[in-house]
């Protein structure tokens, strides 16, 4: 199981999340729709990242992020029929480990890659990607491959 990211994409994720610090930064990962999306061992290719504003209310942006569903629907509609789609999301954990939190698990969708970066004191210090299991009980870490 792995997330293959295009060269330069990590720089955009890093810049977005460092800029958002101390709040959480977030955005979409786009790429070709994998045939085996729900299979263990699948490889997701992300060739584009789209940073989005953190839509959570201002009281908890330092430990919460929200992607506006309308914005997501718009991108899905735009990509419909193109063979490409939203294949995952990235978000940051300011001063906290790049592991999914219980809240991440509660809100997680299947198949998609959840790329979490730790931003420690304003600088990216860890980067890990996760996929939720179909029974929605846990996350499994996947390898991030930089193409």
């Amino acid at each position, binding site marked *: 199981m792995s997330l293959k990211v295009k060269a330069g994409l990590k720089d955009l994720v890093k810049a977005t999340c460092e800029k958002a*610090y101390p709040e959480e930064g977030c955005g979409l990962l786009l790429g070709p729709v994998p045939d085996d999306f729900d299979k263990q061992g699948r490889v997701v290719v992300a060739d584009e990242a789209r940073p989005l504003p953190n839509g959570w209310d201002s009281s908890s942006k330092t430990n919460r992020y929200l992607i506006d*569903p309308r914005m997501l629907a718009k991108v899905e509609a735009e990509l419909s029929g193109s063979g490409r789609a939203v294949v995952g999301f990235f978000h940051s954990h300011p001063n906290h480990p790049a592991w999914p939190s219980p809240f991440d698990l509660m809100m997680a*969708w299947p198949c998609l890659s959840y790329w979490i970066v730790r931003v420690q004191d304003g600088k990216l210090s860890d980067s890990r990607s996760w996929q939720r299991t179909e029974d929605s009980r846990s996350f499994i870490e996947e390898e991030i491959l930089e193409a």
Partner: protein
Amino acid sequence: MSIEIRLPTALRVFADKQDKIEVDAKTVGAALDQMFGRHDRLKAQLLGPDGKLRSFVNVYVNEDDARDKQGLNTPVKDGDTVLIVPAIAGGSTVAEVELDKAELIRYNRHIILPEVGLEGQKKLKSSAVLCIGAGGLGSPLALYLAAAGVGRIGIVDFDVVDASNLQRQILHDTPSVGTPKLQSAKKRLQALNPHVQVETYEERLTSANAVELFRKYDVIADGTDNFPTRYLVNDACVLTGKPNAYGSIFRFEGQLAVFGAKDGPCYRCLYPEPPPPGLVPSCAEGGVLGVLPGVIGTMQAIETIKLILGIGRPLVGRLMLYDALEQSWRTLKVKRNPACPVCGDNPTIKAPIDYEAFCGLKEKPANMIPEISVEELKAKLDKKESFVLLDVREQHEYDIARIPGSKLIPLGELDKRVQELDKKSKLIVHCKMGGRSARAVQFLRAQGYDATNVAGGIHDWSEKIDPSVPLY
């Protein structure tokens, strides 16, 4: 014609890779039911064990969120599109703290308040407050924050406990006189509540370190006693978007406000300019009723906790004035100044500035009196030049660290003991940092002595010349 349900990419694998499913139904709920009848795996993803849509599933009918209409009962007609859109949300573990049994017992009187409750107590535990100063205001403030269970309490202070502090600074006690304030503060707070983390910064808050430090905390509580630091705290709060639970005291009067909150005024909106140096005496010079910081610091703790919990009406846009002699409170309205250089519509201050210069403290007499560096002092001592090295610090400071061969006369006793000094000998005067000795030199020169100041004081001596002299 029929109704089209559109699925997000992540769900298509549970519906034979289709991106849309056509159904015939009168309501959103019935449309979804038809879809679940055909695709069982999809049902498990979208519905919780209670048979209701999971909280992170959004259903739109054409452009509208079904929640804003009649939920699953929202009517649909032929040609409508039902859109299933994930709410993509998550976040770090901060709010996922748990309270153990001992904490549940300790915080019981909070937890049974509906306005606080278990959720609120967890919020307190996962929050972090930075107290600027461990003095009169910082004492009750930090004590109540620790007692209330604020998870991380940072304190910035570089002072040493002086016997004259104990009249009001209840974090410290008699045995801690002469030791760093942070040491006694940490000990006291940890003894009060071992469940909270006390983070100490034994350094001066400066334009170079403030912004980085503030970013690590949720609320800043300013309990400083001088104008340069007060403006620095204000600006750094605005720049980092952190609210400042501000308090100040003087003699029998206190001030209280929350500055730097979103859409609220900052300290500069109220006081664009600092008073001329020397006009407003500090507590050390003007005195203060010992209980007064107890009142104001406690009120700062209340505002801080309200900000963390998001309850009540924070003191934003209002300045409260307390008069202990009259036993009265007055509240004044303070508006955000659109022309404010830091929080206004077109801010010109985008990073901390030089606050000593801003407050006019750089034009102090030190510039007009003869001054030597610690290196020059060392050279004079090595050459065995003839002079008296006068130390104007307090006895307890002298006990901690001294330059060999110095004569101690604390600044406060200098006018009474000046005759102990010989007008024929050359005087070289030092203190801890060079400030008090500058005043001593000014005084001595006015009395006809040949006195020279040591810039940087024993602090510089210890750093640059003799590291065996303790820094304190």
